[in-house]
């Protein structure tokens, strides 16, 4: 059983948004210098799902894979410290300024090169662009079945059985392997790196692949393969006309609020 978990390095989404600037002219979100770069939280949960499978079946090998610059090695290291067995870094100037489509193409090429992958896991969406496209994209490009928004997954027979979150409940879905599953926050918290795994992480192998290693030509990746054109990036305006409802006591505040609501015909 070989599980590949695709993870993305993002600026810490838990940081206050005042730590970010939006450069509208350059159409870029600029994190404050020194803002920590982390593994996107849903991807951490995807890795957690893989680790739980290995806890249950023992003989699974887990590869963490990321597309990014050299700095993205940090999320592979984090993944290895959480318990993954090896890492793959996909890094090439030709991969830069891509979109979800070009990213899915590069990841698919790399998963294909691994040749023995049984299960691909990703987070439901990355915490920077919040798009939730790449997981389904990999499945379509590799013609694998896909199940999104998993809150629980386990191996069953020769397939994977997933509880998929829907608006007012969940579906239980089964697919044959190889398959792609995207993991949602309902899975529960990811484990922290253990001391033992962190010590071992330094000795675990990390492979770096370029466009040429994946047999990708110019136009197959990055900006040249992208379909999305970013027209504008901006901070949404706030409404900003809040009336504070006062009162000497909480009782008075409650009753004053009730009167406001009644005057506005909202009761």
């Amino acid at each position, binding site marked *: 059983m070989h599980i590949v978990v695709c993870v993305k390095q993002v600026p810490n989404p838990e940081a206050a948004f005042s730590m970010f600037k939006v450069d509208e002219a350059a159409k870029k979100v600029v994190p404050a210098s020194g803002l920590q770069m982390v593994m996107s939280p849903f991807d951490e949960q995807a890795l957690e799902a893989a680790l739980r499978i290995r806890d249950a079946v023992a003989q699974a090998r887990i590869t963490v894979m990321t597309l990014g610059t050299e700095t993205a090695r940090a999320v592979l290291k984090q993944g290895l410290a959480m318990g993954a067995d090896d890492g793959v870094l996909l890094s090439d100037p030709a991969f830069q300024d891509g979109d979800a489509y070009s990213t899915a193409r590069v990841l698919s090429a790399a998963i294909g090169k691994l040749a023995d992958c049984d299960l691909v896991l990703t987070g439901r969406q990355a915490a920077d662009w919040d798009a939730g*496209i790449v997981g389904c994209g990999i499945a379509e490009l590799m013609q694998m079945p896909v199940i999104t928004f998993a809150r629980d997954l386990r191996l069953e027979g020769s397939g994977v059985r997933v509880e998929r979150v829907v608006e*007012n409940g969940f579906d239980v879905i089964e697919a044959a392997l190889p398959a792609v599953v995207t993991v949602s*926050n309902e899975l529960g918290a990811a484990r922290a790196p253990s001391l033992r795994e962190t010590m071992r992480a330094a000795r675990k192998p990390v492979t770096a692949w370029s466009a040429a290693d994946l047999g990708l030509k110019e136009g197959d990746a990055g900006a040249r393969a992208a379909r999305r054109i970013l027209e*504008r990036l901006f901070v949404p305006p706030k409404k900003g006309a809040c009336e504070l409802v006062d009162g000497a006591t909480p009782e008075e*505040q409650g009753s004053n609020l009730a009167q*406001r609501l009644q005057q506005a015909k909202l009761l």
Partner: protein
Amino acid sequence: MSARGITVVAELSRGEPTALSRELLGLARGLVDALGGPLSVACPAADARAAAELIAYGADRVYASGERSAQDYDSDVWTHWVAAATREAKPGAVLIGHTTSGADLAPRLAFRLQAGIATGCVAISAEGGGLQYTRPCYGGNVRETVSFNTPLAVATVRGGCYDALARDSQRTGETVTIGLDPAARRARVLERQRESGGDVRLEDARVVIAGGRGLNGPDGFEVLAELARELQGAVGASRVPCDLGWCPHSMQIGLTGKTVTPELYFAVGISGAGHHMAGCGNARNIVAINTDADAAIYKDARWGVVGDYRKIIPSLVAAIRELRSSDRARDT
């Protein structure tokens, strides 16, 4: 995009087009009026009656399978079927509701049809003969507006961003049947577990009372439920209480939860982070109740109350009851 029209993927609930599907028709009608081309609807489970409803709400043509069993979302069968309908309709854009079904279908469809893809849009506009798609990103703190260099784009649209057209039973349109292909199924749904919702559905509620980390514990939701009962509202939550197990995840409102657009939204103990506001920012009136006078939520609220919700909400409930009983006394 030339005058090739738009295809809307409609979902049904109990045989009727969902509110979001009707909103998409309203949006698409406006766009085809500006750009030209027909407005077609792909609705796998539509029967003759549902097709007539979709036409009354703005469709020129309805693609249907005629099989009501297709009402429940099945990823492979729907993707295959909607792709077939889209190849038939040849639109410039396919618009899908941003539901758990739509968010699954849209990227698969886009990759299969070599199309561009934008998820969770809050606005789509016709600019210079093409379409531009605006969507929240970076946890709802930033908006991006994108277009695509492909002949076809697929987009999911959040609820409450557009108005449905008034129902007009005089409108005419045609229905085209495309058969479902069960052989397309690779992932098999074994079971559909649903919470028995005797209460008001969050997405449909006129009043929503949502609690956050500031509730300080699961019992806080009982305080909110009291207000919900008084106003026939629904109780929701930000992500933190769901992740802490104070309430089920089905109550989560926000970027990764539900999108709600009530008349009146109470944000109780919610700081107002972008990822939460992405799910409730389109509410008509927001009331913020928080102990932190500097919470970001007050920037989005119409009314703010600074204080302890455990005291404020019971007194609000009592005051509402009193106002109502004095109204009734005046009426009689």
